[in-house]
């Protein structure tokens, strides 16, 4: 297949990918291609801009009164050294409930979960009991999952974290045409600056990394996946302190 034919094939996929409805496989192939083809990269950026502009058609509607105040208060709470109970309660409802493939810690060796579930219904007491049992296994005080997101906020991978003995994180991120060694996981900490945890290792279509944390969990303010140039490609939110 000639280079032009390659470009034609990829250009046809751009509209669906820009609208966010393409397959992961197509997305991976296109992103790898546009990294190397300036013309296709320019086309990708233009099509993405058009897809984003479509959202401007969304009807506007004023939110309830004091909406802006509530947002600012939530941000202030995240910036504070301790978390407000309201946001911690909201976090506790996000439980991990599906089996995971591998892990470095004994908790994952028990066959614990791999997908993110946000539940506003269901038996809260049963969920809370399961959560307490999960933590008890390794003297834990926190267990949760965070989405990894690209610059547009679209989820692209996830992170599991456990505060206990030991504390650990397990990162899963799509490789999108990159070699795993090109992607490094780093954490930002309150007391030790930015620490490198390690490079993603290939596991099928994704890269993974499971490591024990070198600092206490409450010290972690953020987790990022960076490329060889040090640019952040994916960001996870900071977990609430236990």
């Amino acid at each position, binding site marked *: 297949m000639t280079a032009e034919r390659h470009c034609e094939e990829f*250009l*046809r996929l*751009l*509209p*669906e990918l*820009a*609208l*966010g*409805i393409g397959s992961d496989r197509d997305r991976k192939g296109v992103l790898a291609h546009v990294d190397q083809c300036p013309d296709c990269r*320019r*086309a990708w*950026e*233009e*099509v*993405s*801009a*058009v*897809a*984003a*502009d*479509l*959202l*401007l*058609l*969304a*009807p*506007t*509607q*004023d*939110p*309830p009164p004091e*909406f*802006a*105040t*509530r*947002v*600012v208060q*939530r*941000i*202030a709470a*995240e*910036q504070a050294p301790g978390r407000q109970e309201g946001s911690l309660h909201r976090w506790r409802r996000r439980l991990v409930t599906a089996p995971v493939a591998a892990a470095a810690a004994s908790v994952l060796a028990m066959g614990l979960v791999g997908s993110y*579930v*946000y539940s506003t219904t269901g038996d809260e007491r049963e969920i809370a009991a399961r959560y307490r049992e999960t933590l008890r296994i390794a003297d834990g005080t926190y267990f949760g999952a965070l989405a990894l*997101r*690209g*610059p*547009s*906020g*679209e*989820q692209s991978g996830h992170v599991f974290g456990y505060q206990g003995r030991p504390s650990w994180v397990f990162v899963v991120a799509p490789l999108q045409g990159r070699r795993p060694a090109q992607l490094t996981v780093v954490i930002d900490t309150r007391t030790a600056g930015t620490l490198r945890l390690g490079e993603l290792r290939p596991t099928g279509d994704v890269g993974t990394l499971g490591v024990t944390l070198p600092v206490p969990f409450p010290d972690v303010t953020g987790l990022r996946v960076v490329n060889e140039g040090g640019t*952040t490609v994916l*960001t996870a*939110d900071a977990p609430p302190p236990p």
Partner: protein
Amino acid sequence: MWSLSDEKLLAGFASGDPEQGAAFVRRYQARVYGLAVHLLRDPDAAEEVAQEAFIRAWRHAASYDGSRGQVATWLLTITRNLCRDALRSRRGDAVDPELILALAIEDSGPGPEEQAVMDSECDRVREAIWTLPHDQRRALVLAAFLGRTASQISELEGIPVGTAKTRIRTGMRKLRAALEVGYDG
């Protein structure tokens, strides 16, 4: 505060300054909440999603790239993706795309603080999408707002998958042309 550019206001928001943060939220809250409430059709869920969209924008402000689009579209993309996540955990149909289009025409636009820039941008996109045939408009709204894939659109509309893909691709090409973007795929 209203004379600050979107990018400068975003920078102020990212710094955690409460006054600039509140100004940033007020500038975009009608758009963000409007998108959420029309997709989710649940005011409480929409407020939660809208708040989360601003929180995520604050967390990821450093990764915003002005060369790739406006602050508004970046923020709306975050909102749209959060709505899609919320809709995946729900059963039942999402909003009719015709409603989105109809409201887009009737919408009087954002508040005065956005008016100078946003009205022209919204009007431009609104005029452009109405140059498309109905089936292509509908396919683009189903995809862009509701995250329907070509396969899902083909089932919904009772058409072959190839036809659904053609409507999406042709619709996007015509929309690009109408918006006078240079790419010609």
